[in-house]
């Protein structure tokens, strides 16, 4: 199970858009509920989430610099193609590491 966390300012609207995008992309690649879980968080509490991957925008990525997880930034939060090319390599790497 790879844990992802979509982060935005308040953790309401745009974070949820990214979450839906990630879920659609991963499902398209054939991954299911046993392979991943996506949570939404606001920038102030996101550090406590401890996921494997944070997905956020460049402006918030700076605040997440010193976390253990991978931090991936996307520009167009609603563009599934961009989310796809941004997350898939990292996701597949962590996913196969965890399987071992």
């Amino acid at each position, binding site marked *: 199970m790879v844990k992802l966390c979509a982060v*935005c*300012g*308040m*953790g*309401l*609207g*745009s*974070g*949820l*858009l990214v*979450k*839906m995008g990630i*879920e659609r992309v991963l499902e398209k690649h054939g991954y299911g*509920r046993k392979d991943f879980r996506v949570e*939404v968080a*606001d*920038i*102030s*509490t996101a550090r406590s989430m401890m996921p494997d991957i944070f997905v956020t*925008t*460049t*402006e*918030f990525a*700076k*605040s997440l610099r010193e976390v253990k997880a991978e931090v991936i930034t*996307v*520009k*167009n*939060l*609603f*563009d599934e193609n961009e989310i796809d090319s941004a997350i898939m390599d990292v996701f597949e790497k962590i996913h196969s590491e965890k399987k071992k």
Partner: protein
Amino acid sequence: MAILNFLQAFLSNASILVGLMALIGLLALKKPFEEVVTGTLKSILGFLVLNAGASVVVGAITPLGNLFTNVLKIPNAAVPVNEVFTSIVQESLGRQVALVFLFAFIFNIILARITKFKYIWLTGHHTLFIATLTTGMLWVMPIFNQNETVIIIIASLLSGFMMTVMPALSMPFMKKITGGDTFAMGHFGITTYALAGYLGQFVGDPEDSTETMEFPSWIGFMKEPLVAMGSVMLIIYFIVGLLSGNAAAAEALGQYWPVGAFLQSLTFAGGIAIILLGVRTVLAEIVPAFRGIAEKIVPNAKPALDCPVVFPYAPNAVLVGYLSSIVGGLLAMVIQLLAKGALGGVILPSMIIHFFVGGTAGVFGNSTGGRKGAMLGGFLCGLIFTLLAGTTYTSFGGLNPDWTGSSFGDTDFGVLGNILSFVGNLLK
């Protein structure tokens, strides 16, 4: 009869109604059994968390309200935070708001299907806010005599209408900002976003963009809405404490009142974090279901999305708009203070709204007028939403004494709120 009464008690609970919404959505999307059960329970849980956050926030601003009203003699001072206001209204109009929340979604889909406005509103928290605003405003209109059915129907129609039509207003500028027309703005500050985009062309040049500006790095903390909100509350608490004098401040906040002020300010921000967690948990179940259903019914739909989707296109413009919005808001607050009640409530600065609404106005202003456009857009935005929130605030007055201390912020809520309160006064 016992069963009917039981059912009525069950269904008159707002959190259970929201759970049913999630249940219907998850079933419609043919989710597996386990996900349907956990999703439904999580949305109920989220709604209960939202209610719990309200009492934390109210507890933290009550001493401030007391000092304002009783010591400084400035009644109707309020911090506009939609989340807070919505959760407070839950206590008195929970079921009605929950039903309007549901019907607003449905009406949005119907309108998008049958009219030329193909916008599907995916900003769930703003759907909840507009449902709360319309229900609350209609509830205090004497003409409706608190007739529940009529109010729910009209509030749902109004909310659904706003969700379908307002995004169209943003479209000309969204094309400029994002370079395409795949999505619209779905955030209720659209009147000032469009204004900022329109006026930008007269004051500046998009070539003179905000994105060539440099900002010091310490300003980064301002981009964390909760931290900024807590810090500003602290400043407000200190100023009010000093103006009230040691004795009055100590009575409201404890013997060492600066300590009390410090803790209350951060409790306020903490309470908002609780409400956010609740809203987030509810939306994570309902919005994807709504989106799935909408995509089936309105195949050529255009999504209307939350405002930060435009932030990455001009991050500096967000900061310029945010800071100028604070200036505009402070000016409006001074005007409200000088008006001594003639302009309604006195609206204290809410960093959350300045950041999101002011920042977005900055992006819109920048798209047509560069840095000058961003400054003007943010400034007007802060000025206008603060003035409108002030006049709407007093219209709610008689409904629930607990409502004091918070108000709606975003411009479109102010615009609609004032229109409703104007009509309400005409129809008395």
